[in-house]
């Protein structure tokens, strides 16, 4: 037993190290003077200075975050109602078809989704800009939100709805005071997933960005093609930290979700 757990720990550490080494290697060299990652020069923050003076990059950074927030918000709303609709479907075959259609979008390669969006937008004469990227990000985020919210609804005790109606709640009050708080953990998880999907998406975005608009991942890719610049290391480090902060926030949100849901409902009723 004891031996086993030591093996498990070593194995786990090994996997984690393998997973994180490339990222830390990249972060390490973001503090290196010099032009490439062959040899660590002297410790310097100059790449970060360059980064924060690069107005184009900063603008893209902010736009990427705006895009992620906006697309995840809209996808969460649409996806939540989608999950509700799937739950309401009574016929098993219909329900399974809807679920399958949802899951196909989840597993189909980003390249195909991106290409199809590109064809779709050009066919409609829709310009490739922030709007086209936003629409496609919303589209690929919806299925993940549906998948996150659905289990909460399946677990939900539907007599809670009867109980609320019994106590005088209107249809809207049942929705806001019972359904939403029940789904909230799923909604939060779905929104968080949608946020990270949007932040790190490259393939789909690459197809539907036009001249005027770019996201960080596309920008990093196009810069890396011109030769590795340590400014990109600095940028990656900033992004990594940003995501880390998001994860920590998410962790605390889910830990305190009961309390949060409670406060929310009190506010809604009053």
């Amino acid at each position, binding site marked *: 037993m004891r031996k086993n757990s030591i093996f498990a720990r070593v194995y786990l550490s090994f996997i984690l190290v393998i997973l994180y080494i490339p990222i830390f290697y990249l972060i390490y060299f973001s503090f290196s003077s010099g032009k490439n990652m062959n040899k660590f020069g002297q410790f310097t923050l100059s790449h970060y200075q360059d980064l924060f003076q690069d107005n184009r990059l900063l603008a893209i950074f902010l736009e990427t975050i705006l895009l992620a927030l906006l697309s995840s918000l809209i996808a969460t709303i649409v996806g939540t109602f989608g999950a509700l609709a799937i739950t309401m479907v009574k016929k098993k075959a219909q329900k399974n078809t809807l679920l399958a259609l949802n899951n196909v979008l989840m597993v189909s390669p980003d390249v195909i989704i991106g290409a199809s969006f590109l064809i779709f937008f050009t066919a409609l004469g829709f310009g490739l800009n922030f709007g086209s990227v936003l629409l496609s990000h919303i589209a690929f985020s919806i299925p993940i939100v549906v998948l996150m919210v659905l289990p909460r609804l399946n677990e939900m*005790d539907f*007599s*809670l709805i*009867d*109980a*609320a*109606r*019994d*106590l*005088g*709640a*209107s249809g809207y*009050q049942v929705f806001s*005071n*019972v359904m939403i*708080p*029940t789904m*909230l953990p799923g909604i939060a998880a779905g929104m968080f997933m949608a946020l990270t999907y949007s932040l790190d998406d490259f393939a789909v975005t690459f197809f539907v960005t036009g001249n005027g608009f770019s996201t960080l991942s596309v920008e990093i890719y196009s810069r890396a093609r011109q030769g590795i610049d340590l400014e990109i290391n600095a940028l990656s480090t900033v992004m990594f930290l940003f995501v880390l902060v998001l994860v920590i926030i998410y962790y605390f949100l889910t830990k305190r979700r*009961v309390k949060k*849901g*409670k406060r929310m*409902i*009190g506010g809604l*009723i*009053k």
Partner: protein
Amino acid sequence: MRLVAIFIFLGITMKIIELKHVNKRYDDGFVALKDINLEIESGKFYSLLGPSGSGKSTILRIIAGFTNPTDGKIYFDGKDITNLDPAKRQINTVFQNYALFPHLNVFENVAFGLKIKKVPMDKIKAAVRDALHMVRLDGYANREISELSGGQQQRVAIARAIVNEPKVLLLDESLSALDKRLRKEMQFELRAIQKKLGITFIFVTHDQEEALSMSDEIFVLNDGKIQQNGSPVDIYDEPINDFVARFIGDSNILPGRMIKDYEVEFANKKFQCADAGMRPNEKVEVVLRPEDLDITSPEKGKLVVTAQTQLFLGDHFEIKAIDADENEWLIQSINGCKLNERIGLYFDPEDIHVMRLHESQEDFDARLESYEGDDENE
């Protein structure tokens, strides 16, 4: 409110709920209710008793408004509420699994209905305190639901319902999730709460003991139909048919024949009985409750049987025996007997309950009433 109290004091009760010709067929074709007619009076404790699938919960859901009947009408205080939203009915429900809101604490659960009605906060606080006091959960207001035991959750569910001051409280199999000891305790408590509030309770259960011990009146349901209604004593002593006889308590049911008034034949012997008003030689079924059978010597017994198995159940013996015609007899007696020996069974004429086949409740009631008339003449 005072008027109601006076009525109750005078023994006058008012009809509060009435179901007229209610039918329910579900989308999948299952017929849950067949022409249900029932009247509920204010201030009484009712039970809807039946096996699962008998339609008892459907009746409750129709009264609460969660389900609409396929046909028929429901009246509340004389007004047609058949299509009224459950939110607008002066009826509250205690659900089978309690259906407490898991994201709210005890106070917020109980206050839910009052908050929806926009009652001022200070009044809500007082009302919730009173309701929690009524169910003996003082000081639990700030607990989370997940911290409570099953019995405590049950009490919160009751408090959440009664805090709205409903005229009728519906309880759907509310005690079935509790262990036996707690269930007994809650039976007493429910009855006490009902007495204190003076409102109507309609309690759905499949447990005949529960129904018998708590109710003023019981509706026995089977197969979507009301089989019999009446006081617990009436239903136990005079079951209308073999379903009721079997479902309520243990019974020995035998085919028989009325020879003439006050004489019935079964197990190939003629017996004096207390029933009359049937055709001569009419085929009937006879019910003898196991606790009405006394063990005596074969000479003194009205019927001779052979004991086959015997169980000691603490306060009595339960004996299975067989008579000369191979009819099985269940006997509950404070005295045991020797196995595989002939024993006599003794019972009084009143212990024989004669049931006519396919008798309607009206005919049944009329027949019973005619006996009571006889008693007075004697």
